[in-house]
């Protein structure tokens, strides 16, 4: 196995062009498991942790551009107020040790249908910035995943960053697992409301070959919500929303749960997320709701 350690982003892109087989590694929370358990023996690994640009974030024309190497811990601490949905999902990732190392760039690169960051990124209509020596392109997250652990990236590309608007309204996330920590989602759901544009975004995790949006559910509920009067949606409306989310999933039976259970749980989670989000007063849209205990 060859170990590549580029010092700069330009060097990393040149190395990836010269070694398209190189497996990028950042936090190692996926790649190292495969190497340690001998599930995979990459010919070449490329360490991206020395590259400063990947660990930086900033705002460009009102949109957040977040380096692929920003850890979940930093997302929670530094961006939890602007990206509450992603922050709630990030708190469910692994343990403190895993959140200190794991990155959204790695989550996207692994492209597991169960990746915790994917549903909130889908719900918020985020984009992925891919780079190579031949240039940079931005792909909407909803077009990024092509199958289980498959994505649209070329072999010579690296994930530079993801781009997402600071939450324009309440966001929520819910995940089913056997514990509160250290679990792969049995299924998960993310919701993002945009009251000014009267739009609703959704993301379904771990209930299909890729993370999915519930497009029909989004259109239905955007038309039903009382955006001006802010009256709570009726039970019948919530139920219909849940049914449409469940219908959008494409789950299978596997070791973590059955397809029927996943559909049922998605209907429940989506109803709850909507009720929580709708009940969140505007001064808490920035992420004050359902935050973790102080200091975590």
């Amino acid at each position, binding site marked *: 196995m060859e170990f590549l350690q580029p010092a700069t982003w330009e060097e990393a892109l040149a190395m990836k062009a010269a070694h398209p087989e190189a497996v990028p590694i950042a936090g190692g929370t996926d790649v190292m498991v495969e190497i340690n358990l001998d599930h995979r023996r990459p010919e070449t690994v490329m360490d991206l942790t020395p590259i400063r640009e990947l660990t930086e974030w900033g705002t460009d024309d009102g949109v957040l551009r977040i380096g692929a190497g920003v850890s979940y811990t930093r997302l929670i601490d530094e961006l939890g107020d602007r990206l509450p949905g992603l922050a709630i999902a990030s708190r469910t990732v692994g343990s403190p040790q895993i959140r200190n*190392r794991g990155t959204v760039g790695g989550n996207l690169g692994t492209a597991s249908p169960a990746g915790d960051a994917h549903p909130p990124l889908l719900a918020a209509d985020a984009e992925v910035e891919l780079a190579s020596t031949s240039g940079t392109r931005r792909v909407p997250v909803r077009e990024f995943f092509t199958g289980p652990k498959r994505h649209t990236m070329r072999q010579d590309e690296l994930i530079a960053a993801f781009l997402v608007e600071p939450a324009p309204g309440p966001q929520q996330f819910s995940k089913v697992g056997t514990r509160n920590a250290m679990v792969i989602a049995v299924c998960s759901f993310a919701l993002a409301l945009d009251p000014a544009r009267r739009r609703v975004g959704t993301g379904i995790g771990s209930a299909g070959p890729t993370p999915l949006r519930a497009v029909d559910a989004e259109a239905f509920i955007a038309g039903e919500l009382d955006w001006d009067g802010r009256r709570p949606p009726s039970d019948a409306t919530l139920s219909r929303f849940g049914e449409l989310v469940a219908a959008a999933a494409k789950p299978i039976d596997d070791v973590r749960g059955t397809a029927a259970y996943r559909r049922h749980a998605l209907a429940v989670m989506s109803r709850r997320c909507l009720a929580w989000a709708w009940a969140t007063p505007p001064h808490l849209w920035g992420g004050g709701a359902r935050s973790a205990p102080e200091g975590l």
Partner: protein
Amino acid sequence: MRIACTVNGHTRVAENVWAGESLLYVLRERFGLYGSKNACEQGECGSCSVYLDGSLVCACLVLGGQANGREVVTVEGVDAAGVQQAFVDAGAVQCGFCTPGLIVATHDLLRRVPQPSDAQIREALAGNVCRCTGYAKIIEAVNMAAR
């Protein structure tokens, strides 16, 4: 390949390291530091918890080369006598295998949150698995160490 890093304040060098070796393997088998335990090798159990550049990590998930030029503090080097004594006094050590990881993780918690609630303790130690105690004594030990 060659790995040079600072471990517990001392410069350590390992030669002829296979590129796929984890930091945990380098610490145990190259540097003879057996405090960090090797159990799951997938970040699930926390028994290999160490500090890497001041951040609590599972050493098994760090590729050896990624530690090159960085600063590592293991259970052997962490200044946690109070936490260790509290674990002894509370009876939080049974077989002891998970203890080093829990000492480092508790040290990390208490430097961030000096007076943690039980919920904060449970959350902070969620990535450290103990199969003996049932955790009640461990939480008691953390509370004792925080006093």
